[in-house]
Structures are given as structure tokens and as C-alpha cells.
């Protein structure tokens, strides 16, 4: 069973971007935020959800697998680190490989950066900055047992489908109790390739 990790609960997100500001304040990324907010129902409601690195376990970190410079380290405890500054060549392979659209490229530094689960904090037993401050608990850091103690009966998922591929992740999503379905469909349907409709 999953250990201490981040749980994302879109039902609690208010779109305030405290996580975005908090990520900018943590000591890992020196003033840059590794979180973005997505709006799945734009124009119809204010629904929002934060996207952090899902720390893929199986297949292990697609971003790391495609890195030609071996710059992305996966630690023994399953945390997919941001690119090693001495190795990264800024090619953006990782950006294209990530099924969740997480890594970003700093064009000036020619460096990939992404959420590393606040390794500077979690290594000392602290929660990541985003999950610490999240005013609503849409980002929760802990074990699934701790989450359920606070939110009885909550259902979580840690595997997602992208076409025929199933990706298991270290970070989990809270899913509606009445719509439990594993794996959770992830990503957007492909509708066009090179200007050709493939739907």
C-alpha cells in the first residue's frame, strides 16, 4: 500500500493558487512554481484542480526513461527528482513524455524543473509546502489511513489509463465514492495528428 504521499482532492479545490505561491516559496526551486492549476469545466463552473508531479511508479517515471542525459533521478523511496543541473541539456524530451503534462523547461537556464515532492522538506519529515498551506485540504500529505481518519470513507486511485497504457503513480487522487472506477481515465482524447483527424 502507498506510504506517505500527496493526495489530490479536486472536490475541495477553490482555485486560490495558494499551492502555486507556496511552491514558489519552498527552497527547492528558488522562486519558481512547479504546480499549475487546471480548469476542467471552464465557462460552466469554477471547478479547478491542482496538478503536481504524480511520481509515476509503473512504468517508472516516463520522463526519466526518455532522458538522453540520464539527468532525472528516481530515489529509492519513489520520488522522481527534478533534472540534475549538471546533466540536463534542456531538450524537453521529458516534457513530451510526461502523461500528466508536468515538467517545465527554463529556457534561459536550459534546464528542466519539476515537483520533487519538496525533498528538502519531506526528507526531514515535513509535508511539502503546497500540501502544508493548501487552505482547503485539496492537497493532503500523509498516509491513506491518515486521510481516511480525517475524511471517513474517502476513495482514492493511483492508476490511470492513457489509451491502452496504464500508469501507476506514487501520488494519488481522491475520486467520488459513487464513481469508483480503476484505473481512472487520464489525459485528453487524441483528436488530431499532424493536422489529420484521427477521432
Amino acid at each position, binding site marked *: 500500500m502507498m506510504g506517505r504521499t500527496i493526495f489530490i482532492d479536486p*472536490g*475541495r*479545490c*477553490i*482555485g*486560490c*493558487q*495558494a499551492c*502555486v*505561491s*507556496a511552491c*514558489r*516559496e519552498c*527552497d527547492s526551486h*528558488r*522562486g*519558481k*512554481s512547479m504546480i*499549475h*492549476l487546471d*480548469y476542467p*469545466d*471552464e*465557462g*460552466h*463552473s*469554477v*471547478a*479547478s484542480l491542482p496538478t503536481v508531479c504524480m511520481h509515476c511508479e509503473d512504468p517508472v517515471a516516463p520522463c526519466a526513461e526518455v532522458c538522453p542525459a540520464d539527468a532525472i533521478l528516481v530515489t529509492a523511496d519513489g520520488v522522481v527528482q527534478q533534472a540534475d543541473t549538471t546533466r540536463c541539456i534542456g*531538450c*524537453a524530451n521529458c*516534457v*513530451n513524455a510526461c502523461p500528466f*503534462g508536468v*515538467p*517545465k*523547461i*527554463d*529556457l*534561459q537556464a536550459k534546464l528542466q524543473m519539476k515537483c520533487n515532492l519538496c525533498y528538502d522538506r519531506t526528507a526531514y519529515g515535513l*509535508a511539502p*509546502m503546497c500540501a*502544508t*498551506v*493548501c*487552505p*482547503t*485540504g485539496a492537497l493532503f500529505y500523509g498516509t491513506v489511513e491518515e486521510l481516511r481518519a*480525517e*475524511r*471517513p470513507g474517502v476513495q482514492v486511485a493511483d492508476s490511470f489509463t492513457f489509451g491502452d497504457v496504464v500508469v501507476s503513480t506514487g501520488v494519488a487522487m481522491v475520486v467520488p465514492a459513487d464513481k469508483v472506477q480503476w484505473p481512472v481515465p487520464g489525459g485528453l482524447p487524441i*483528436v488530431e495528428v499532424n493536422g489529420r483527424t484521427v477521432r
Partner: protein
Amino acid sequence: MNRLPLDPSLAPPGTRTFRDAGGIPADQWRADQDGETLVPTHCCFCGVQCGMYLRVDKGGKVFGVEPRNHDINRMRLCPKGINAYQQINHPDRLTAPLLRRSRDEPFREVSWEEALDHTADEVRRIQAAHGNDAFGLLGGASLFSEKTYLVGKFARVALKSRHVDYNGRLCMVSAAGANKLAFGIDRAANPFSDILLTDCLLIAGSNVGECFPVMTQYVWGARDRGASLIVVDPRETAIARTADIHVALKPGTDSAFFNALLHVVIKEELDDEAYVGAHTTGWEEVRDKAMEYPPERAAEICGVPASQIVEVARTFARAPKAMAWHARGIEHHSQGVENCLSVINLCAATGNLGKPGAGYGTITGQGNGQGGREHGQKADLLPGGRSIMNAEHRRQICEIWGIEESELPPAGTSMMEMVHQMRRQEIRGLIGICNNPFVSLPNYSTVKEGYDTLEFHAQFDFFLSETAANAHVVFPVTTWAEDEGVMANAEARVVKHNKAQEPPAGVRTDTWVICQLAQRLGAGDKFAFAGSREVFDELRRASAGTVNDYYGITYQRLEETGGIAWPCPSTDHPGTPRLFEDGRTAHPDGRIHMQVVEWHPPVDPYDDEHPLSLTTGRTVAHFLSGNQTRRLGALVEQTPRPWVEIHPSHGFRNGDPVRVVTRRGSEVFPALVTEAIRPDTVFIPYHWPVPTAANALTIDALDPRSKIPEYKVCACRIEPGDRIAEVPAPPTAPGHVAYPAAQVSRTDPLPPTSPQGRGTAERG
């Protein structure tokens, strides 16, 4: 510093590039962990007052923030709280007094002596020619309680003027007035933690998710435990989206809705007869009036289904424990007090008071909106919430202040009324302390005219606000992190802010400036305070024995406990987190004085030319007039400019220029098209200066009792606009230049559809 421009076209396909964080640019960001210290304090912004640590480096400068496990927020912070520290050492900070003899001249930096002497001379000149009341004082509710106490004392003892008021007048005075009428005490009845214990939570006119984000954890906590959530709001806010019942009523119809709820409660015999009989007065009249509001009639007024009204009434009244929390959405009205009273009537009739999980609360907008009026800063109040027109109360305070009762002026007028008095030259001189009426008051052209008519105007602030930029003298004062003092949050919990760094050279505390001015006006012996501690000790004594009793609260106790709710009459008293547990209110008879409420249409009438409702409110990244938050790049980036939120049925597309016309004027905003608003209502966030100011359009109609302006409803029309105006950069003192990065997004012609998640982006 050379910074290469970021060219998005250079990005590899599919790359997400960084947008600059603004404020503190990314390459200037530093985390000096060696030898840093953490200073425990609270956020300077809203009425939740989250605990936080400020990170202070070896050189004694604040450089960051760290979450703090305080009882109120349990580590949580919103984006305002996280970014607040950036204003402490911001390059826009005022660091020397500014002076000019007329508004046609530029400001020049002068010595403190010259600025203080000139101000005192102008006070004496105006008062000698036109009487003491020709000089006024306007305070602020972001000040520590010690300073609000000093503002009230300075106006009455040093200026000897009746004209003192504060910007809390624009915040929660309707709730305060209603609470005082019904209960004889002006504060929320329950702590936030009671929300976790309720079975039904009704939130009226409060965008909790954006205005008080950290309070959401209590709302979600209640929901996790199975409580019903009812939200009354014309817009589908983040809280409304997940509510069991969202009542999207038409702005300005709240009291009709609440009267109809009471009607259903009475008709279906869901009222608590035993409680009403034992604890209330006025029930007969309230009941008779409620019977005039059947759900069908209210449905027509409010524009919601009658069946929904019945459902809400049943859900609230049948819950074993129910709570109602409200904010500016029902308070910013020409019937704001009545709206709040109609909520109180519902709570009282169903016996939902004085129990864990049952009661009411008003959610304070400003950090010290609650404490700001308790100690004499409001036109009609003396310290301890005493009435300035009550002979006994006057005598008590004169004794503490060491003046004759005949020297104490009578009650003054409210903030908006003072503006009209400025236009009529009844008030010719003014000192403003940490407020920004040019952005925050309604009907901008009237406000500008009033201030322009002043012969002399001085402002205290730490950034040059739009109002300060129009003054003759500007005093550079400290931020919350450079002084110590207390604030009372929305629960009436008094918390202590601690000093984290020394103020920049040239900056003084508000306390020092007020005392210096008092000395020059011949009242130095009454203002011999070295700092906040001495002022707080006098404040404690001045509040002793009143409803707002602070006597038992000391700095030491606050540091040990993390906060004490007043009343707290002795140093061994634990404070009073929950009111009315013994069934008694603060009225002499101990009963709830229920008040008859009649619904009136809003003051600005709808007609063929102005068929829609314009309503206004806040966004999560901005606070009040934005004098602080519009300078912090990360927050500017989140909400770079105001927009007009409209329903798709009007035929506009996202980003179209839309002219919004009211009887006060018109301005063009980019459209943000969304189904999350009523078709007959448009919304504009109201934190920006002209020509992007919702307050150039809003009406300055006032509630007759609380004198709060009617920000939340006026008649308007929308039509295709031409050019969308750029948001002006915040004013700065001569020689101060804001970070260019903070300006980046300000000219973006599109509304932040994606950051806000409300727009209809082109959908495949």
C-alpha cells in the same frame, strides 16, 4: 542586471515556459537558511488572521514565510498570506515624509520636523478660521487595535473634532448594527471551530473560497461530517459549486428571502417555541411580518423557485444544530442592517444560538475589522464600545482621558457623509490613516471632488496609495511586521502580532506620528506613549467593565495562548469563544430583541435603459483597495486586471470589450463569459483605480442605520465597448521604481479566463 527576454517562439514544441513570478524576480530569490530566525506572528490581511512565521535572516531582514501550526489556520495559508512578506522590503516603500504646498506641485522629500510642523500649522489655521469640526480624521481597520484606540482619542482630545470615522464603515458595520440591536453585543457568536460541529451550514453573501480561503477548511470539514451546505449568492462561487443547495438569488433581495424562510418555518411549525418564549422579545411582530412573505411572493422578488425556498427552510430548521455565516454580500446594501437582522430572526426562531455547532457569525473582511471599531475609531463609539451620546459613558472615558466632559465632542458622521461634507466645505482639512478611499469608496467622481476641495490633506501609509498621491503631506509609516500590537479576528479572538524587523531608515510607527502631532497640538501630556504596550494598557483599562471587556487580556497571555476571545474581564478569565451559552444576551433583560424586517427594492431603480444588476466583490489574490496586493507580482499575475462577468445569453465572447453603464458613469471591461452567474446580473471585481474601477459605477446610497454603501447592487446596462483601458500602475514616491516584472501582465487585454477558470474558452 541583464535579463534575456523570454521568447515563447524559441520554446521546444509542447514546452510549458515559466512566466515571471514578478514581485521578487526569480533570479533575485534567496533562501538564507544559515542563521535565520522564525518570528511568530499573524497575516496582515483578512479577518481570519492566520498564524505564520516570518523568516528573518542574519542581517535582521524579513525574507520569507513559513507556515505556523496556529489554532486558527493549522499551517494553512492563502496566496495573499504567502506573498504578504514581500511588501516589507518592497522597493515601493515610502521612506521619507513627502510634502507639497499645492496639488499642482510635485512631492518633495522633507524632514519629519517639517512635515509634522506643517501639518500642525494647517490644523491650527483651519480650526481657527472654521471651527474644530472643520478638520476630520479617517482611520483604518488594518491598524492594530492600539492604533485605532489612539486615532479615536487623537480626534477627540487633540483635534477636538467630532469628525472621525474609519474604513470599517465600508466593511461589516451592518452586521455590527444588527448584532447590537438584537443581542446588545457586536461580534460573531461562535468560533470557527463550531462550524465543524454543525449539521447545517448556511452561508449568505460570502465568497468564502476567494475572500477567506483558509476558512474553507472548516466548511469542508463540516461537509465531510455530513452537514448540509446551503449557499446564498447570485454567483456560483467555489463554495456554491459544491453546496447541497445553491440559492442564486437576485442581488438586493436577501431580506425577502430570509423572511420567506421564516414564513415556511412558522407555517410548518418548525420553530422552537420553547426557546423563543424563554429568550426573545418582539416575536409576535416578527411572526406577523414573516406571514406577509409566502415563498411564492419571495420567489418572484428573488428570482428563485419557491420550492427551493421551502427546501432551504426545512433543511435549516430540521437540522439538530444549524449555523448561519454571512459577509459583505448581504451587508453592502441600503438595507444591510435589515438583511442581517433577518438572518438573526431565523437563527433565534429555530433556537440555533449559544450551543456548539449552532449560532451565527459574520466574516470580517479586514484584518482588524472587528477590533477596529471596538475602541473609539467609529464616529459614534468611545473605547469599550461605549456610545458617545450616552452621558454615563462619556463621563467614564473623560475620567480615563483626563478631560472635562464638556470638552468631548458629540458623534460625528460616517465616511461617505464626510466626503459630502468635504464637497460642501464643511470639512476643509483631513488626515487619513492607512485607508484608500479613491479606490474603496463608491461613486468615484464624487469622492474625487470631495478630496480635491480639501484645503489640506495628509495621509499615513507605507505605499503611496491613489489617495495619498492626491495629498499635501504623506507620512511613511511601518508595516505590520515592524511593530507589535493586537487584532481581533472574525471570531472576536484577540491575537498578537510581533515585530520581525526594524523599520527602514526614515520610517516611523503610526503611534509615534500620532503622539508627535498631539504634542504639537498642545495635547502631548495625554499622548505620552513610548509604544504599543503602553497604549494597550490604557486600552485595557478603558474597556474594563464594558461589553467589549479587554481588561484580562495581556500581551503575555496572548503570547502564551495564541489568542483570547473577548469579553475577558480578569487576568484569570479564559475568554469567551462562544456567546449566549447561559441563554442570556448582553441586553439588560438578557433576551434577544427580535426586529421586524421589511424588504425594500434597491435604491437605484431598474428601467429600460438600466435593466441589469451590477454587483461587485473581491478576488482571492487581491485585498481591499489593492494598495498592497497590486504591488506584489505573483498576485498581480494571478489577477492582472478587472473584468466583467456576464452570462452567455448576452451574446458576447470572451475578451470582448464591454461597456458597463450606470447612472454614475461608464467604463469598458473585457468580458468573462460564464454560466456561473445569473443572466440578469453582471459582476465586476472592485479593487482597481479609474479607468478600470467598478467604483466609478457603484452608487453611494447608504443604509440609514449603519451608513454602509450599497456596493452590491445598482442598475446598469451593457453594450459593446471600444478600447479596453489599461490598468494604471500603482503610484510611487519620487525616486522609487516598481519592479518592471510586476507590471508585465498589467496591459494584458484579456481577462484571466484561465487563471480564474470561469471563461468560455473556445471549446472543441
